[in-house]
């Protein structure tokens, strides 16, 4: 009888300290679609993760061109990993009682979307994301990071985050407000914050599902399976072009001002233009 009780106790204890529910589990997979690899502590062999599997600091997640994963961390922050990506959890410490967090993630390739919960007690960035060219520091926000061959594009959808080059000797930090974008290239300070449109956010959402459109085997025809340049189209497609207010239909300056000498004061929308000044419609006042 004692033996049976001892065995049962030992079993119960082994369950309590089983790897899946260890105290250093910092997050769980909440979504796994298609081929996804997990490298425990960054080491081979790869494991195929399932929903609810735990993640520990040092783990690496690798999604294939048809794979996609979503991870929820212990502080309720959520990381969505697009197809064709590789992400390492370097550090993740969270103390709900003290309201403190220190998280460091490294993205090696691909695209991620992060929704980071805000910890009120912290003033300094407590969630760091590193890429091959950039370091992002945030307290609580929602953003997309897309990695290209020699750059990282950061689209901040909500909240505020600050970005600098991963090489500390490269000066300059750019802080993004909601719906602002920056690009960080090798050895160059981040570009000035530029606005992006809601429609572009829709494209990003789409890319988060589709990734870069394929791995080596599904590359651009003719490049013999060389794979298309990751997110290379973004630059060519005007995502990076600073919006010329004269050609941006949303701009208050989209239409050039009408310089009409009379009257001076008009209730137009844009009081611009040379000479008599005043854009918009003629109105009262210039009797």
């Amino acid at each position, binding site marked *: 009888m004692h033996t049976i009780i001892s065995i049962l106790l030992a079993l119960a204890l082994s369950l309590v300290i089983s790897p899946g529910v260890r105290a250093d589990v910092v997050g769980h997979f909440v979504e796994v679609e298609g081929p996804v690899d997990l490298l425990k502590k960054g080491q081979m062999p790869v494991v195929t993760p399932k929903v609810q599997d735990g993640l520990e600091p040092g783990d690496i997640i690798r999604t294939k061109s048809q794979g996609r994963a979503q991870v929820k961390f212990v502080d309720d922050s959520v990381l969505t990993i697009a197809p064709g990506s590789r992400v390492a959890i370097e550090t993740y410490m969270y103390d709900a009682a003290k309201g403190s967090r220190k998280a460091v993630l490294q993205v090696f390739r691909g695209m991620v979307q992060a929704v980071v919960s805000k910890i009120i007690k912290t003033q300094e960035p407590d969630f760091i994301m590193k890429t091959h060219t950039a370091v992002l520091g945030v307290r609580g926000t929602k953003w997309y990071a897309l990695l290209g061959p020699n750059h990282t594009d950061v689209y901040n959808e909500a909240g505020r985050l600050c970005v600098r080059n991963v090489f500390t000797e490269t000066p300059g930090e750019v802080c993004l407000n909601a719906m602002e974008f920056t690009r960080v290239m090798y050895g160059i300070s981040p570009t000035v914050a530029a606005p992006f449109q809601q429609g572009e956010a829709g494209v990003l959402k789409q890319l988060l599902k589709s990734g870069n459109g394929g791995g080596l085997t599904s590359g651009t025809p003719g490049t013999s399976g060389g794979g298309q340049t*990751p997110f290379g189209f973004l630059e060519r497609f005007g995502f990076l072009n*600073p919006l010329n207010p004269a050609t941006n239909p949303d701009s*208050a300056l989209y239409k050039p001002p009408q310089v009409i000498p*009379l009257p001076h004061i008009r209730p137009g*929308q844009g009081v611009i233009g040379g*000479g008599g000044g005043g854009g918009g419609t003629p109105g009262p006042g210039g009797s």
Partner: protein
Amino acid sequence: MQNGFGLILIMLLLSGLLAPVPARAITPYDDILVQKALANLDQENYEEALEELTQAWDKGAQTPEKAYNLGKVHRALYNYPKARDYLEQALRLRPDYQEARILLADTLVALDQVDQAREQLRQLEASGYQPAQVALLQGQAAAKKKEFSQAENYFRRAQQDPALAQKAKLEMSQALIAQNRLKEAQKTLSEAVSLGPQTQTGGLAQYYLGDMDRRLQGSGPWRFNVGVGFDWDSNVTLQPGSPGAATQVSGQSDVVFTQSGYLEYTPLTTGPFSLRTSYAFYQNFHPRLSTFDVMSHSVGLMPIYNFQASRLWVPFYFNFTDVESDKYYTAFDLAPTYLHLVTPKVGLEFGSHLARRYYWFPLGIPQDDRSGRTMGGSLGLYYFIKNQQGFLQARVTVEHDFTGGSNWDNTSYRLFLGGLYPVTSRLKLGTFMELILQPYDNYFNNGIPGATNPRRNDQILLYGAQAIYNIHKGLDFNVHYYLTRADSNIALYDYNRHIVGCQFSYRY
């Protein structure tokens, strides 16, 4: 002896040629590693593939195929400079290795090394290898160099391959947009969508098509704007042609009914250039002070040139104004202006202004002839907010009036500060303030013989605030308040004026 020596020599040579060279041989071990690496590449296990290929490269034969695969795997790991090195190595080992060459060209384009990429692409063109794919890369290289017309031609060529047609069309649409050929870009995007809306390229094309439709909605050749307003004016004043310098101050208040119209037609749009014509009409009525009723017509011609991040426009206007049905004022205005976007949030505006003005009212004394020429320039700064839907603005302007009568020769120095803030998608708030220092050149002559007057010196403050609410589509309602405070050392021109009112306007 000679034969024996020759035989030894031949044997030595042969042994030299046939001797095993460990670094060059393909061993079974090497072969297995490469096979494993290729399998890992297929399964997108790039880190594993890299390890195996590197080992095979270091310890086995350095073949062009291994270099090519190392190039591929480094690309997959975003290590493009290393990928370039290996692909170049592959070509050194096998110069006719066109698969490596096209991948090298693609890698160089991605690395912004466009000139080197073009060199590779020229060789590919000469060999006739994958002409459509080469044309696509040529187009991308040209687009990177901002040679959009050339890029367009290459993208057209790339479309001949059905597998590339959608991507090439999408890229071509961007080259057309860059040339401001929006209608053609719209058509090309539609074609790209029709080739497969479900693909990633199709999805992107759909997004850009939506954006293009929105742009084109506001770029039709015709545009008009009509408005009716009601105001109360505390001090009805005539001030045609110049903001602060009143011609006649009534000193009395009145209500004002206004009506206005604006018609615009753009007959010519070629790439970044367009030519715009316009007609504007403005009329007001004062029930009590009908001698201040104004009717004004303006016709204009405006060439516009759009650059990547700037715009140059040269508006030329002719204005004709009646006061109480009598011809009162005519003017020609030319105001070339250049707006440059320094950053997406900061714009600089350079303006100049030339005008010829004629005042047709009867003169009491010749010194009061205000007709003349105006010359000036301005420098402005914009700070854009809320995705350029709003802005803060500062502008300094200096102008000189060269007039027929000595009473009106003056230089004006103006500081304008303004802003527009979109509170919601429907409500916008705007405000401005302009400070004008206007010293006149000559002693003021009031026509009284022997009277001594100082040089006229005006200091004018203009202030305005308005709220604009979009009721429905193009229908706006605004309420506004304007203040003119003119401090002049000549009593005739020392006055204050408040205007408060509202206006309905409709634009199409």
